[in-house]
């Protein structure tokens, strides 16, 4: 260093500081992830037991589990995904295959992106006005539809992106064989983009299974085991919200156990979705 002139030395010093700061930034990011996961494990494992999966949420001060909430989360998520998948895939197909480059197509893509980033609480308000107020009761259907509205733009967007990656030669080859357009789409283009579309669906599942805000005024919450889709239904996020903010120790313990379950389930889904994309590449 001593042979360098002062300006160069200052430049190198400045560079070292910048490099160190950005490494620290990355370390902070990783540290936060580790801290959150550690909190979940250390506080959640104590509450985990077989009962969590077999018994319904208890009244304060007694023993119970999260079975109704876990069931509710699965049902609501499935309802949302079952509604959103066909619509999302078809819409993505239209925007990517039929409306490519057209002005209306671009506008529809933009509107999809607006929906994608609309605050989820607003979707809750919308479905509340659409499906809860007219029927006079909170219902699992409303919750499922609210989640579908959140999943729809995710699936639509990933389908668009994945279909854009399918080489045109495949479409031309199929068309040259005399295949009608819908067969080109379903038998060739969708098949080529299968794992990509599946990734989009998995990411949508991961996204909606942790959503709380849109469920607050749609499927609400239910202390008891309920399989009736026309009534309010418990779900893990809403139960976590209710129990964590309560002053009761055993409710809080269950909230942390639920938090642990849902976070690791969602992170696992994210990792599986990523692995699918990687294998493709």
């Amino acid at each position, binding site marked *: 260093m001593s042979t360098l002139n002062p300006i160069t030395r200052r430049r190198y010093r400045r560079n070292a500081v*910048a490099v160190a700061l950005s490494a620290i930034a990355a370390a902070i990011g990783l540290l936060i992830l580790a801290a959150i996961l550690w909190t979940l494990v250390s506080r959640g494992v104590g509450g985990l037991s077989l009962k969590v999966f077999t018994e319904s949420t208890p009244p304060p001060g007694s023993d119970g589990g999260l079975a109704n909430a876990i069931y509710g989360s699965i049902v609501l998520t499935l309802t949302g995904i079952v509604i959103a998948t066909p619509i999302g895939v078809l*819409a993505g197909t239209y925007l990517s295959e039929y409306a490519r480059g057209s002005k209306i197509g671009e506008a529809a893509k933009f509107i999809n992106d607006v929906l994608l980033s609309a605050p989820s609480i607003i979707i809750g308000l919308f479905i509340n006005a659409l499906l809860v107020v007219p029927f006079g009761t909170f219902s699992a259907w409303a919750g499922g539809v609210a989640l579908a509205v959140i999943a729809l733009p995710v699936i639509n967007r990933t389908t668009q992106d994945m279909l854009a990656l399918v080489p045109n030669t495949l479409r031309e080859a199929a068309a040259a064989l005399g295949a009608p357009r819908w067969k080109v789409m379903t038998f060739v283009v969708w098949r080529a983009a299968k794992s990509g579309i599946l990734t989009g669906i998995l990411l949508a599942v991961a996204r909606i299974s942790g959503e709380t805000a849109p469920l607050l005024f749609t499927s609400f919450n239910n202390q008891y085991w309920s399989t009736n889709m026309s009534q309010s239904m418990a779900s893990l996020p809403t139960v976590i919200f209710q129990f964590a903010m309560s002053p009761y120790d055993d409710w809080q313990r269950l909230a942390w156990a639920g938090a642990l379950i849902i976070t690791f389930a969602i992170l696992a889904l994210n990792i599986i979705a990523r692995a699918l994309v990687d294998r493709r590449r």
Partner: protein
Amino acid sequence: MTMTTMGPDAARDPNAATRRLQRQDRVFFWLAWGSATLVVVVLLGILFSLVWESIPAVRTFGLSFLWTERWSPAKEIFGALAPIYGTIVTSVIAMVIAIPLSFGIAIFLTEICPKPLRRPIGTAIELLAGIPSIIYGLWGFFVLAPLMQQFVQPFLIDVLGPLPIVGALFSGAPYGIGMLTAGLVLAIMILPFITSVTRDVFQTVPVMLRESAYGMGMTTWEVMRHIVIPYTRLGLVGGVMLGLGRALGETMAVTFVIGNAHRVKASLMAPGTTISASIANEFAEASGKLYSASLVELGLILFVISFTVLALAKWLIGRTESY
């Protein structure tokens, strides 16, 4: 000819087979068209229902809704100032913390990090985006808020509190929960979004430019500062705006740590509220048409704000892509 594959119809009349295929084609087209249209209808429906449901509040309070601080369900007087203020302040705090951190992480991931570590570290940062917002709320309330109350806030109050002007932001008692903690939680939540957009736009810089700069003897920092950042300027702003859009609309994480007080206080330590937190906390119990209409009008304001931010972000990112 193709009769065997076309089935019995074709045996009778080859044109019938073609017609059937055309019909199937049309059905598929209209299904796809209908689905794409449904997305547009849903968005218009959201907008319409927000406007429609908020009419009673708009009629009663008019434009003064926007700058009235008072929020009194008992007297049916509602003003949006405190939630709007809270939404903006928490988002600004989040941006101030998240922007330098995510730029740092993106620089680390594209220029500094050893190749084999890039993917695992990048993935870990992106996993932060997968954690549900309610978990951030829990963590913020039970882990971060006590830390803030015991260490960070007393320190800020002692050191920055006595200063003129700036001091007002850091005065009062350390509650733990409040605007500052909410902003911090939001910063963590939007970090992965800004990082991934930033990293993507950094990678759009032609290798030629970067290599030439290094070839001239520039240091890593100089390449970032004078080549990469100027080149990707618009995309960076776009990424920041996307993060801002997330921060503005985030609900559950903020609801846990904001304190839900309809007040405008200078101090960042004070409890406040945001638009989404007010809706989440009060909508289910809102009795009376005017109360719920006021909450829906808050939702409409939030929708307009986040739409504007998103449209700006898209426009800016679009401009970098078309280089």
